[in-house]
């Protein structure tokens, strides 16, 4: 895949092969004057910068402003200082949502990683039809989430659905997957793992490709067991990709709205309400814009920290 080489490419570009930018080395015979070049580069980026400011930066700043006001979707409202935040922070619903977000994220990240890694390792070995398996196993990631949520609703939502009927046939009695708070949480998490494991499988398969097979041969000669191979060779050698994929999946899980909302809407009794769903419900169902935006903004701050940390890590390892 084309983008795979991004790492090397970035290194090359940042190391100073690129000459069109402001840092043009003086001795080069480039027909453009650096000044003209700089202006051209700005012109290149201008439309994108305009859209980024209008559609990404401005809403963020406006959200910060709005979270300090007692407004609605139509009126700006009065300035209330940090009242929205104190309201949110003493609300048990907020902490319940934060707790569920953490559970959902942990299960989403490690569940999908475990399954994805296991499948990537299995598919690296010699089994018949592995290309077909690889393609089929990516389908949960390719199929739109609205479609798969509909399918999962059919599977589990009503007493007539296949899963409750299967549970009954197995003698587990009347299991209502989305009506019991704990079962609903489990179902939503399993759904998330189902959607996300193909991403992990792709990431891990790409990482495994880069492990030199001679290392395994050497380990074999030294009498390493399969378990030793996994813990002492495979995992350390793919640790960088693993780390990046964990953080990316964390970001995906924390931000996830449709996976939860389409299956449970946050219920039953708010058991599956994550922070994003809480923010949405507070603003668009209960029409309490201030507190809703405050929830969203708190989450945003956490995500800014996570992504800056990730960015730093990537740059440190890869570029410098």
């Amino acid at each position, binding site marked *: 895949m*084309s983008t795979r080489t991004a*790492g090397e490419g970035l290194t090359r570009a940042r190391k100073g092969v690129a000459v069109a930018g402001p840092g043009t080395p003086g001795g080069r015979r480039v027909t453009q004057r650096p000044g003209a070049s700089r202006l051209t580069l700005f012109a290149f980026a201008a439309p994108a910068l305009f859209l980024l400011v209008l559609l990404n930066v401005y809403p963020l700043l406006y959200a910060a402003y709005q979270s300090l006001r007692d407004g609605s979707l139509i009126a700006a409202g009065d300035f209330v200082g940090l009242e929205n935040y104190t309201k949110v922070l003493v609300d048990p619903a907020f902490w319940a949502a934060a707790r569920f977000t953490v559970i959902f994220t942990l299960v989403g990240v490690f569940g999908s990683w475990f399954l994805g890694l296991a499948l990537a390792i299995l598919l690296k070995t010699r089994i018949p039809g592995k290309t077909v398996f690889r393609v089929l196993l990516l389908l949960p990631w390719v199929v739109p989430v*609205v479609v798969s949520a509909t399918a*999962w609703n059919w599977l589990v939502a009503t007493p007539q659905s296949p899963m409750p009927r299967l549970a009954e046939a197995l003698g587990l009695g009347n299991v209502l997957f989305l009506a019991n708070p704990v079962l609903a949480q489990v179902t939503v998490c399993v759904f998330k793992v189902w959607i996300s494991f193909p991403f992990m499988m792709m990431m891990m398969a790409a990482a495994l490709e880069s492990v030199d097979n001679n290392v395994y041969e050497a380990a074999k*000669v030294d009498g390493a067991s399969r378990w030793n191979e996994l813990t002492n060779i495979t995992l350390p050698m793919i640790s960088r990709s693993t780390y990046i994929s964990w953080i990316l999946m964390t970001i995906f899980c924390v931000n996830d709205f449709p996976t939860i909302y389409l299956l449970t809407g946050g219920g039953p009794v708010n058991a599956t309400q994550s922070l994003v769903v809480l923010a949405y419900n507070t603003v668009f169902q209960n029409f309490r814009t201030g507190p809703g935006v405050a929830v969203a903004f708190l989450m945003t701050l956490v995500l800014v920290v996570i992504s800056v940390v990730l960015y730093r890590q990537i740059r440190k390892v890869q570029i410098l």
Partner: protein
Amino acid sequence: MTTAALSEDATAFQPPATSPASKKAEPGTRGSGWRFLLVLVVTLVVLVPIVAVVGLSVQPALGSTSTSKFTLENFVSIFSQTDVLTWLRNSLTVTLVTVLVSVIVAAPAGYVLSRGRGRLISGFSLVLFVVQSLPVVTAVIPLFILFAAFGLVDTLTGLMIIYVGSTMSVAIWMMAAYYDSIPVNLEEAAWMDGCSVFGGFVKVVLRNSLPGILSTAIFSFLLAWNDYLVALVFLRSSSVFTLPVGLQSFFQQNATNWGLVMAVAVMMMLPPVILFATLNRYFSVGGIGGSLAGQ
């Protein structure tokens, strides 16, 4: 697992005698049976929901007079009973415009990120990275207020503008990642021949960037085609629904008539699946992440 099985790719094209390890056992045969079975079982379980969508869509719906096990009448019914054609047209319009605009805007901006250097460019790169990881819900509320002032709520135009904004950060990054693989010497040669920076970009870089453009286009396509949250907030009337909200509202009204619901679902999942089947080389999972971690 055997060593030979693990090193399949390395040993497959070598004579067996080159490494002592490949003499042991018959490569990959020992234990491959249970591995195949395990993968097969996992794949079958994983595919149950997707098979169910397709299976239910071709079975007679509630109240149908058909007695056969296979029927296409659900697909006929949804065209007459629902606005699915309108939703499909809306989704296609919004998605194609989003793809077109985001590629056209991101292509030159990615060039700056790839070739430019200095503090400003580093800042630009960090901002793009942070922006792509922020929750959509935070931006949606202020944008709803802004767009209401311009009469863009409940319109497809409003939706397209937001989708272009959502794709922007990742699209720029993906284009830049691709340009990084194109040697800068090619542009230098063009400049020597009297090409302008813009000319060099179009004639040399862009002309060699089809795979990067396709990856970016597919990313934008999936984002716009699959989005539920923005469409849910911004669209109110059935005539401007895109497929995700259309399917969801139809599902809520006909929750028990699975044949019809799944027929709409099949319509919605066909375009991404077809794209995946034909262009899967250009699918980059995870946008920025895919290009960062997959090296």
